[in-house]
């Protein structure tokens, strides 16, 4: 069997589902952020795989993957700063206990 596009797509679907599970069920905000990183990586695998197998004439897929990595770094920086700020004010990092805006 030859290595093809479908292998990469299946792997990224599994990785995305694992990330979604972490986002849906974890209480710790840092663990939720790790789930988001897994989902972004799954999307990146798809971009690079489509670039190689479907549109190899241009490098747009790899360029998009680099942009996604940059934005993931921004998201991690701002998200973890928010975690620090919330911990300082509320003494918790659990997403279901941060509910002071719920009336």
């Amino acid at each position, binding site marked *: 069997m030859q*290595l093809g596009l479908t*292998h*990469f797509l299946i792997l990224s679907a599994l990785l*995305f589902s*694992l990330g979604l599970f972490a986002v849906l069920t*974890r209480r710790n905000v840092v663990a939720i952020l790790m789930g988001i990183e*897994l989902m972004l990586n799954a999307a990146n695998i798809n971009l690079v795989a489509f670039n*190689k197998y479907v549109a190899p004439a241009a490098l747009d897929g790899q360029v998009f993957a680099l942009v996604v990595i940059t934005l993931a770094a921004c998201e991690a920086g701002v998200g973890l700063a928010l975690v620090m700020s919330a911990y300082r004010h509320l003494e918790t990092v659990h997403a279901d206990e941060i509910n002071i805006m719920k009336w």
Partner: protein
Amino acid sequence: MGQLAAFIILSIVTLASAVVVVGSKNIVRSALSLIPTLLGIAGLYILLHAEYVAGIQVLIYIGAITVLILFVIMLTEQGTGARFRQVNEQVLAGVLAAAVLAVLLMAVFFGTTWAPGPGALPQYTAPAIGSTFLSSAILIFIVTSFVLLVALMGAIVIARRER
């Protein structure tokens, strides 16, 4: 054949450590097993002839984001968080949603055939990526740089201690 073997090994490493990331009760263990996951994905990028993306993956994800996550874990929770309950009450619904999504995606992927496009990737992609960023993708490049600057300032402003 060798490519398929490499793919199988890399995907086993990636998925096994991703399961530890998602399932471990110890939050430090989750953050540390993010490293083999991301390394496996970097190997997959090399398999896909994207050596520049693989290098950036190692530098930014493993070198910066994982270290940042570990620092925040150490600064926030007392210890590893193993004393706290790590999952909410919706584990069953979460498993169900993730499984349904995985099955749907795989059904779509198995049912669709993509026609291979014309042309081939250049032998070394880094110079071509550089010239793409400075010619046709110049707007994306500038906007991303701006977002990076704003995120830098925002992170400092948000995390700073108020007086």
